[in-house]
């Protein structure tokens, strides 16, 4: 890690707690310590409901940690993280805008002239493979196409940090691979710092430079941190065939498996209690 430059994202002992309806306090994430360096692609993996998205929302400034600190390029984060682009898990496109308008909006709100914004939006749509779909409204696009538009919408603003919350979760297996390769290709162009949340360990290893494992919630902690030294550029479907990939997968899975089981047990207990 380059010590001369401050990390793009640095969470230091960040604890996130929510007040429940019955006045109890639910601690989602406890004392998370996480750093993403310049140009580094970090994937966070954990069992469902462990607070991965919570951690991402903290980095985005959408949530405030109850204690601990969040630093963005060395500066303490106050309010929203203006350096970050956020790709949400759920559909976040503006349904009343066409694809090209959805992409252009990021520039328009910064005051760019509409003509110019539309032109650049068209360029971005082309680079995510949707050049001919600019006039479609989101409901006329497939799930994968909507994710592409979302990616273009975030990237057109050229954020220094990319936060992604299971962005390809709802897609089918083939589309996920295609989207993964597209993401790597776009990322390779300028190597932004990426924080990528997923529940899919294979996806995490195939994409990231580092894989961070979280324990089952509540009070989820970061319990492991692996460096992925597979060579780049990678092809998502090919990299899965490599021996190193399998070894790393086995190693991480041995830790993750217990947490996944714990997560299941807890969520089924919670369901019984309800």
């Amino acid at each position: 890690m380059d010590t001369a430059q401050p990390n793009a994202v640095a969470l230091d002992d960040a604890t996130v707690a929510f007040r429940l309806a019955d006045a109890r306090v639910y601690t989602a994430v406890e004392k998370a310590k996480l750093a993403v360096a310049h140009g580094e692609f970090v994937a966070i993996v954990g069992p469902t409901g462990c607070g991965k998205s919570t951690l991402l929302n903290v980095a985005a400034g959408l949530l405030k940690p109850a204690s601990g600190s969040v630093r963005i390029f060395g500066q303490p984060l106050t309010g929203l993280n203006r350096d970050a682009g956020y790709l949400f898990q759920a559909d976040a496109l503006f349904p009343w805008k066409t694809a090209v308008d959805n992409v252009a909006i990021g520039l328009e709100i910064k005051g760019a002239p509409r003509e110019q914004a539309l032109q650049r939006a068209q360029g971005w749509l082309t680079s995510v493979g949707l050049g001919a779909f600019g006039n479609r409204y989101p409901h006329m696009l497939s799930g994968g196409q909507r994710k592409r538009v979302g990616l273009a919408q975030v990237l057109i603003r050229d954020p220094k940090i990319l936060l992604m919350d299971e962005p390809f979760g709802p897609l089918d297996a083939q589309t996920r691979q295609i989207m993964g390769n597209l993401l790597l290709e776009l990322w390779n162009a300028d190597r932004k710092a990426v924080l990528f949340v997923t529940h899919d360990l294979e996806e995490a290893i195939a994409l990231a430079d580092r894989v961070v494992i979280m324990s089952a919630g509540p009070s989820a902690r970061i319990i492991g941190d692996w460096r992925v030294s597979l060579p780049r550029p990678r092809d998502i479907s090919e990299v899965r065939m490599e021996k190193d990939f399998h070894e790393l997968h086995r190693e991480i899975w041995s830790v993750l498996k217990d947490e996944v089981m714990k997560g299941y047990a807890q969520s089924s207990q919670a369901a019984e209690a309800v």
Partner: protein
Amino acid sequence: MRRSTLLALQVLVAVVVLGLWQFFATVPVFERMVLPPFFFSNPVDVFSQIVAWFQSGVIWKHLVITLWESILAFAIGSLGGVMVGFWFARQPRVAAVFDPYVKMVNALPRVVLAPIFTLWLGLGIWSKVALGVTLVFFIVFFNVYQGVKEVSTTVLDNGRMLGMSERQLMRHVYWPSALSWMFSSLHTSVGFAVVGAAVGEYLGSAAGLGYLIQQAEGVFDVSGVFAGMFVLSAFVILIDMGVTLVERRLLIWRPAAADGRG
């Protein structure tokens, strides 16, 4: 069913109903009229009354008056509904304070307000507009309120992360969402604007379709009453078709209800 078959059957219904009406109103059955002309008139008389109105041109004046009242009621009611709906949705405290009163006024059958409006605003068009406004306002208000409240939090967060200020969120997120709800109730609110106008006219006025019906009723001219009713329903259907056109244009971004694409 094929389109032409459907149309033929639809026409058949009208022919049968009108035929039966004409028959029982003009031909005695066992020396008794089933539909005494004094109470039921007959289709031929009703139709000639309508033709007479259009030939002499008297009907246009009434149509125009009713149309104006409906348009004004719709415009003022919608504007008020949008503004107050927005305000309440963004200021939950204000909404909480006014909540019981809003419910109270909305629970009131609006027809009882007509005499008050006539007293306050006279027999001219404004008392009818006021009645229409009270009907339109609440429909638009509730829809806009709902629309602003139910903006998806993900879309809102996305707007924020893309760098939108509160004003830009208003313009690019809240406003289109609220409008879409308002437009989805367009048929209802336009319909109510016409109801307000016609009922207001019927209860006291000097012109309009409601006035025409009321006048005919006053002299036991049943043909006139039916003729007025037919003109009024044709008028509403025409307006409704116009609304459908507007809606198609403005809500183009909305998925059709049956669209199953994920």
